[in-house]
């Protein structure tokens, strides 16, 4: 069959032709499907991967003092981050080379960077080092890097795929007059995943995955104002995440400025005095224990008596707020919490709770004078006072015979106030089980705001505690199992190892009748000893109420919120919280008595040669005893303008330890010069800061209220 193969071949060419064309038609159909039918889909996918939204963090608002001096500002800082998505596209060897190169530049080992890039919770992740932010966000590996390192990354992107260098603003502390104010100002830390999710749910656009939020102090309290609104920049990126060009920018909004009532100059003096007082105490030998004073903590408050505005608030031990900037290390953080270092994170002025000691007596006086006692009352200031089979001694004073309340305050007579406390207990409360028994002294303490938060604009304030009958019962219920457990075993039992004789004996008594509010509790209460504890701020506020005629103010640090353009958005007016309900004549009587303390009482030896005629300091000293510890030194004082309270835990006697500092603070506040007073030398121009705010000019400078336009 010649030619048959030939013909077959030609026929087959036609078949092949049909086949090839059907294949090409398939291609065209598919092309049409991709580009026209589902084109919109692919276009959006293309856009989403080639355009990235870059968050432009807003400048956080400033925090300034009443004179407009910046306490917290911002500075630029270079941050190096690694985009894990892009890194994952590189080969293993490329990754290793890249990480060791960038590690060498920022001073980290590649191994360490790997750990930092690990997502927390994944297998092998290292808590504290791992990344707990969004999985799609570049992970910051080094903050505050030198500019030349950042510029190298920026200028040679081909050598640094997946590496980003960005400028961020971080907090800066200009420290006018050397102020620290760490507890007052607070700090920032990166947003947690939970907070971020919540913000997303509520549609809050002010935070993003890379935000830092206020965690303490006014940074936390006024976070929403200070935060600002982040901007967004849409940039075209290539497959390696490198930015090719900018497409669009939605500008952010800087945060608002917080004007506080703090005066940096006064704050500086107060901090310095507190630190010096503690340093001196630590060199002084305690005559009771024979050891030097531990002086483990201290606090000082300066507040305006007529407004509740806080002018200075200091706490010891303190820390450098800069440690939070750019991420705190594990070691630094554990030091802030460490008891060995005195838990520097705890702000003693608002969060520390201490027995008030004799600074408590003016409030007991108010309670007594409004409940049957009179200014003509004379009680025996003996050297001891027996309640049942126990003798309560007069610690701070000797025996003064029959005296009135004024003299009792001046010399801080304990036995005098024991008799007052015992009187009320006998009259209303001999039934030790009656938790509702009337107690005018407890009522008075509550009226002066003790046992409750003051409402200061600082988060985490402690409420203190009034150790009344109800508290005692509750405490017994809570602890009886523990103490009864100790008491049920012989002291030599293995489970009681380390229990001292005192505690063993106490446990036995507590187990049986720890709920009972006995006469001993009542007399202890009357002199501010025992289980009653107060914060230094509570004490300052209560003394301010004596000074201002009976109004308890909510202490305020914020004075105003001012927009970046200088518009006042909100003013914080003095906020009266309550009236103490004590007649003016009683307050006046106490006021006169406290003047006497300064003139001839327990504080007088610290105010020799002080122009008390021009600056009338009223004061009360106190030394609170705590079982197993050295006494707490207290001085509470006030003038017509300011209340000044200082305390040093395990620091010694009131006037002995804190007296000189109190005097120095008043000298600065009023411009005391020898026996004269020169208001021009006062720390605050005009002695008390005006209601007027500093002036914020358009160019960003801030003028003090006085210069700003009077």
């Amino acid at each position, binding site marked *: *069959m*010649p*030619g*048959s*193969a*030939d*013909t*077959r*071949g*030609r026929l*087959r*060419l*036609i*078949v*092949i*032709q049909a086949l*090839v*064309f059907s*294949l*090409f038609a*398939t*291609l*065209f159909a*598919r*092309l*049409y499907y*991709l*580009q*026209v039918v*589902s*084109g919109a*889909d*692919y*276009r959006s*996918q*293309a*856009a989403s*991967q*080639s355009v990235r939204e870059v968050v432009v963090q807003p400048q956080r608002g400033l925090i300034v003092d009443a004179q407009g001096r910046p306490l917290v500002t911002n500075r630029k800082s270079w941050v190096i981050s690694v985009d894990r998505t892009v890194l*994952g*596209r590189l080969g293993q060897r490329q990754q290793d080379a890249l990480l060791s190169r960038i590690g060498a530049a920022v001073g980290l080992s590649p191994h360490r960077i790997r750990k930092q890039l690990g997502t927390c919770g994944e297998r092998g992740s290292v808590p504290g080092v791992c990344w707990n932010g969004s999985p799609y966000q570049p992970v910051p590996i080094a903050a505050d890097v030198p500019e030349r390192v950042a510029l190298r990354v920026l200028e040679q992107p*081909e050598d640094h795929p997946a590496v980003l260098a960005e400028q961020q603003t971080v907090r800066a502390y200009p420290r006018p007059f050397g102020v620290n104010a760490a507890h007052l100002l607070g700090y920032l830390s990166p947003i947690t995943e939970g907070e971020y999710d919540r913000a997303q749910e509520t549609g809050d656009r002010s935070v993003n995955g890379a935000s830092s939020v206020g965690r303490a102090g006014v940074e936390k309290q006024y976070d929403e104002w200070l935060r600002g609104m982040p901007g967004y920049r849409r940039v*075209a*990126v*290539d*497959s*390696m995440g490198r930015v*090719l060009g900018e497409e669009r920018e939605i500008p952010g909004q800087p945060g608002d400025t917080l004007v506080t009532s703090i005066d940096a100059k006064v704050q500086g003096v107060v901090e310095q005095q507190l630190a010096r007082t503690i340093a001196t105490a630590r060199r002084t030998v305690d005559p009771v224990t024979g050891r030097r004073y531990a002086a483990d903590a201290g606090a000082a408050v300066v507040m305006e008596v007529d407004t509740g505005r806080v002018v200075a608030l200091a706490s010891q031990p303190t820390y450098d707020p800069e440690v939070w900037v750019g991420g705190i290390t594990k070691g630094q953080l554990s030091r802030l919490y460490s008891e060995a270092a005195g838990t520097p994170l705890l702000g003693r002025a608002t969060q520390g709770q201490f027995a008030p000691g004799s600074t408590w007596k003016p409030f007991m006086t108010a309670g007594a004078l409004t409940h049957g006692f009179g200014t003509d009352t004379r009680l025996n200031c003996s050297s001891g006072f027996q309640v049942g089979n126990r003798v309560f001694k007069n610690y701070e004073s000797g025996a003064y015979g029959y005296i009135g309340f004024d003299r009792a305050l001046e010399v801080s007579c304990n036995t005098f106030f024991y008799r007052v406390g015992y009187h009320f207990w006998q009259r209303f409360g001999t039934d030790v089980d009656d938790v509702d028994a009337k107690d005018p002294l407890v009522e008075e303490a509550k009226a002066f705001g003790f046992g409750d938060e003051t409402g200061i604009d600082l988060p985490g304030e402690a409420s203190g505690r009034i150790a009344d009958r109800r508290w005692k019962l509750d405490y017994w219920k809570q602890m009886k199992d523990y103490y009864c457990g100790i008491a049920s075993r012989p002291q030599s039992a293995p489970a009681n190892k380390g229990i001292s004789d005192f505690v063993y004996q106490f446990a036995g008594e507590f187990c049986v009748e720890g709920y009972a509010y006995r006469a001993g509790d009542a007399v202890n209460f009357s002199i501010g000893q025992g289980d009653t504890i107060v914060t230094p701020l509570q004490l300052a506020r209560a003394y301010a109420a004596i000074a201002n005629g009976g109004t308890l103010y909510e202490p305020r640090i914020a004075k105003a919120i001012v927009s970046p353009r200088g518009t006042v958005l909100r003013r914080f007016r003095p906020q009266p919280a309550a009236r103490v309900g004590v007649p003016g004549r009683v307050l006046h009587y106490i006021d006169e008595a406290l003047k006497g303390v300064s003139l001839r009482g327990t504080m007088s030896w610290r105010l020799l040669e002080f122009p008390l005629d021009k600056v009338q300091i009223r004061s009360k000293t106190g030394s609170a005893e705590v079982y197993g510890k050295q006494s707490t030194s207290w001085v509470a004082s006030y003038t017509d303008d300011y209340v000044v309270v200082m305390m040093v835990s395990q620091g010694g006697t009131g006037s002995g330890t804190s007296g000189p500092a109190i005097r120095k603070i008043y000298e600065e506040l009023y411009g005391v010069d020898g026996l004269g007073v020169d208001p021009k030398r006062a720390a605050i121009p005009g002695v008390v800061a005006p209601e007027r705010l500093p002036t914020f000019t358009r160019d960003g400078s801030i003028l003090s209220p006085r210069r700003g336009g009077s």
Partner: protein
Amino acid sequence: MTGRAPRQAAVRRVPGLDWLLMAAVLGLLVLGTLLVWSATSARDGLSPGDPSAYLRKHLVNVAIGLVLLVLVAATDHRWVRILAPLAYLASVAGLVLVLTNGVTINGSRSWLQLGGMSIQPSELAKLAVVIGMALVVAERAEGRRRRTVDWIDVTLMLLIAGLPATLILLQPDLGTMLVLAATVFGVLAASGAPRRWLVLLAGGGVATAVTAVWAGMLADYQVDRFLAFTDPDLDPRGAGYNTEQARIAVGNGGLFGEGLFDGSQTRSGFVPEQHTDFIFTVAGEELGLVGAGLLIGLLALVVWRALVIASRTDDLFGRIAAGGIACWLGFQSFQNVGMCLGIMPVTGVPLPLVSYGGSSMFAVMLAVGLLQNIHLRTSASPMRHLAPDPVLVRR
């Protein structure tokens, strides 16, 4: 015949080339040059500091290719047949060298580093196999003076194809292997081999492929790619990444494209191997359905002209060679474009006349030259309609 041919050829060359084929080829070359330029100019990583480096190299390749095309087209038919065995042996030698001294790129040992050039012998092997197979059948048929294809022809053809195919499988280069299989099948079909052979071979080929996958003869990445093609969402960061990005780029083009040099995905380098295997995605994104459709049309035109040349020629060698070339170019184009569109698995084969790369460019230009050569001979014969077999008539 041997004495007359050169003189006759001189006379017959007058009517000229297949201008439609020529226009399609030139169109593809121009389009390809623009696409290579676009795909490489924004990629700093490919040629740091020199955005036009690839464009220049591509133009050199095109120029060399055109010279080769003209040379082959102008060469006497006899010389082609004399040189064919040499070309075949050279490409087999190249494939052996690749296995011993080759450079591994993307998992395949397919490249020979020669001086500053990388040569991919498997590209030239496709042409060599086509010519080799055509030559065997033609020589034997002419020797026997009849035009049937018996089992000896088929066996010889399979042996001719089998040697390079084995070498290519050893690299392993799955894409070239698939194209080669389609080409061999086309050559066999065009040669007029009995149908039972074709059915047997097709069945055997499928069985071999299935066995290969089951027995684990294929490298993991090849199976991965195949799976990724069936379901690109399986692993969008790994094997499926290529297909996914290719589809996004093509889909982003829409009807008219984003404009040459303006494709966001192309400029940003999301599609890997975009100037070589995935060059079609550049056309898809930047030129849209219109431009990419034109590209498919031009490829179809080339294949169609090859088939027309194959069916018009009276020369058995010419018909088998042209048919084989048509199958080769047709299937390779389909494989390449299909891969970019996500309907074929990702296997590294270049798009004929468009992709960057010298080996493929030279092989295809040689093939086009051969097509023109066959066309010249055919169109020069005044008796071609009357005498289907000039060899027999002359005798």
